[in-house]
């Protein structure tokens, strides 16, 4: 190849690249709105992520079955955000996935992430691209905290919307529940070192302290470590009423059997991180029994209003739904609603316009009314408490807010 041809080829390539990346999402390209879904589909939290994925897919199939929304078909673009090296979600992989979404000019919004650790990594990326994501499950409050705006949304506008409430309520309300309903007077707090785990354990511990519950200690589990007997023996020596674990499944899978062996009589509680239908399979039914966990949403799966939905989900998706499958379904409805309103207002479908429309959402969804504050947090702030009994998750009550 001579020099002139090399220059010409390079110029041509540059032109192609520019054209491919510009303009982001002109409506002429086949009338499709792609929704990015980045979820930890492998690893310890795979079961929860699978339910969330299927909730979103069900909504997309239903909407397309009715001919789409305002002339647009919805299309899912699905990536796994877990890596074999991590054995669970990997924030770096989530960031890579979201960069791929942004590189695809048809991706207008996203549903996800599942984990707050991913959320912290992707929120600034979304802010740069002015693209909204709606998380059906990640609850760490830092990401949407206006005080941390410079870190998580440098461009200012909210891009991280939630169809669940945050750990500003989930952690403290579990503390309220343990104090009022279980008469817990002393507690030992553990976390798994992840963004979500540390955050929720902090907020739980703070509220428990305010209630006058004695905090006997705080330590951190390495999710890759096998031996938790050391810390559990230490806890046994302190003789607490309860043990609180802030974190997700990788450490929980080992914490449950070992705590069943070392401290069988202590009340044990976790968060939505251990609301995972595969837990008894991972750790053994008897080890999981008695554990409390929570959801940053109202109880939906057993709600009579959702009976038809649940039946349909079970039949079509061939698995049991979770509450976050429903909040994920709702996340897609929010995007579809935003597309519809944008088209009605005669605005082009762009990431910015869609973000603005999502911000203005007033939707009566299957979980109840959805509207967001200026930071992207849902206005409904219900936290529900559950307990594992005989290998199944049973709804207990709404967690007390005080």
């Amino acid at each position, binding site marked *: 190849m001579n020099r002139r041809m090399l220059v010409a080829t390079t110029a041509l390539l540059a032109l192609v690249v520019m054209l491919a990346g510009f303009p982001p999402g002109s409506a002429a390209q086949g009338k499709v709105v792609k929704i990015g879904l980045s979820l930890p589909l492998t690893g*310890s939290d795979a079961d929860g992520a699978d339910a969330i994925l299927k909730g979103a897919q069900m909504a997309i199939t239903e909407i397309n079955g009715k001919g789409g929304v305002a002339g647009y078909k919805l299309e899912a673009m699905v990536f796994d955000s877990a890596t074999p090296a991590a054995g669970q979600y990997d924030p770096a992989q989530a960031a890579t996935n979201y960069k791929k979404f942004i590189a695809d000019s048809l991706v207008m919004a996203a549903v996800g992430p599942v984990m707050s650790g991913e959320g912290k990594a992707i929120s600034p990326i979304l802010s740069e691209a002015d693209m909204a994501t709606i998380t059906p499950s990640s609850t760490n409050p830092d990401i949407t905290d206006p005080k941390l705006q410079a870190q998580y949304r440098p461009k200012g506008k909210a891009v991280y919307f939630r169809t669940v409430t945050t750990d500003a309520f989930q952690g403290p309300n579990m503390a309220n529940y343990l104090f009022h309903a279980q008469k817990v007077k002393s507690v030992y707090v553990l976390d798994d070192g992840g963004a979500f785990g540390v955050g929720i354990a902090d907020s739980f511990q703070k509220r428990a302290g305010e209630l006058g519950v004695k905090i006997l200690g705080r330590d951190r589990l390495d999710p890759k470590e096998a031996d938790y007997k050391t810390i559990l023996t230490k806890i046994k020596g302190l003789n607490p009423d309860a043990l609180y674990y802030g974190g997700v499944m990788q450490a929980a899978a080992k914490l449950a059997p070992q705590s069943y062996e070392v401290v069988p009589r202590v009340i044990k509680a976790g968060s939505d991180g251990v609301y995972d239908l595969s837990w008894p399979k991972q750790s*053994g039914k008897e080890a999981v029994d008695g554990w409390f966990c929570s959801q940053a949403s109202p109880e939906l799966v057993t709600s009579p209003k959702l009976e038809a939905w649940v039946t349909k989900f079970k039949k079509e998706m061939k698995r049991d739904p979770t509450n976050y499958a429903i909040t994920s379904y709702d996340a897609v409805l929010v995007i579809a609603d935003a597309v519809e309103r944008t088209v009605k207002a005669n605005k082009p479908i762009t990431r910015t316009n869609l973000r603005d429309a999502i911000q203005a959402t007033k939707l009566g969804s299957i979980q109840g009314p959805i509207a967001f504050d200026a930071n992207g947090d849902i206005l409904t702030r219900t936290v529900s408490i559950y307990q594992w009994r005989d290998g199944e998750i049973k709804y207990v009550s709404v967690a007390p807010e005080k």
Partner: protein
Amino acid sequence: MSTLDVLVQQVVNGLALGMMYALLALGFTMVYGIIELINFSHFSVFMTGTFVGLVVLELMGVTAVSKSLTGFALVSTLVVLFLATMTTTGLLGVLIERICLRSLRHVAGTAPMITTIGVAFILINAMLLIWGPQAQRFPQLLPNWRWAVGAAEITFKQVVLFVVGLVLMLALSHLVQRTTLGKAMRATAQDADAARMMGIDVDRVVVLTFFLGSALAGAGSLFFGLYYGFTGYYIGYTTGLRAFTSAVLGGIGSIPGAVLGGIFIGLTQSLGGQLLGVKWTDVIIFSLLIVVMVFRPNGLLGARIPQRA
């Protein structure tokens, strides 16, 4: 529980943990002693061993939901389980040596060591593909018997772990110190070329070393499964790294050193977790390693400075 009882309990926990590290450290130390190779695939052989154990148990009809066994059924199941798993992991070690390492034996530098890292990843990903990324439950065939020592308690699992571990280590020590094969191994360790001139089949010695080291890793993996009740493709790394540290701490190449190092690390882990917090576990272990290395560069029992001609 009083503070003393808690400390006693942590010592018991630490000894059990240390025994597992020691079994794994032996494999590192033996291979290093013979061919001066740090064999990182050992981590993964250990991990693979837990899955081999799962399969062996399944073939015998024991699954994660089975009740624990007692009496003759327990003893016979354990004997079959240990023999089958140790033989399989031993053969896996031989296979790794034959396919991946023998042709690199005389390559200087880090190439053979890097190869072992590659093998480690192959095994990790193979197990990931076969078993998936979630933790697998390991059948709890040992009954939950406990004995009280004050307010602390010793479990039957810990006793089995300790007794079987000790028996295996004594057998190994007998083999190395008292048999012809052991003599050949020691000769090869001292000077492979001279050993060959004396008529020792060095290749055979190396193969046997890999077999023995990997078989001990297999025993270690069964301890892991029976003691913790789970396994996963990622367990080799943390446990393996600590076992490797044990071998270095005790003096790499020294068999009693590996055992001492393992128990030392096990106790450090449990007492450090008790006194400071488990989030500092690795900081404590590796700080101690650095301190020992500064004052005794050859480890606690490694008197011989490796001399290269």
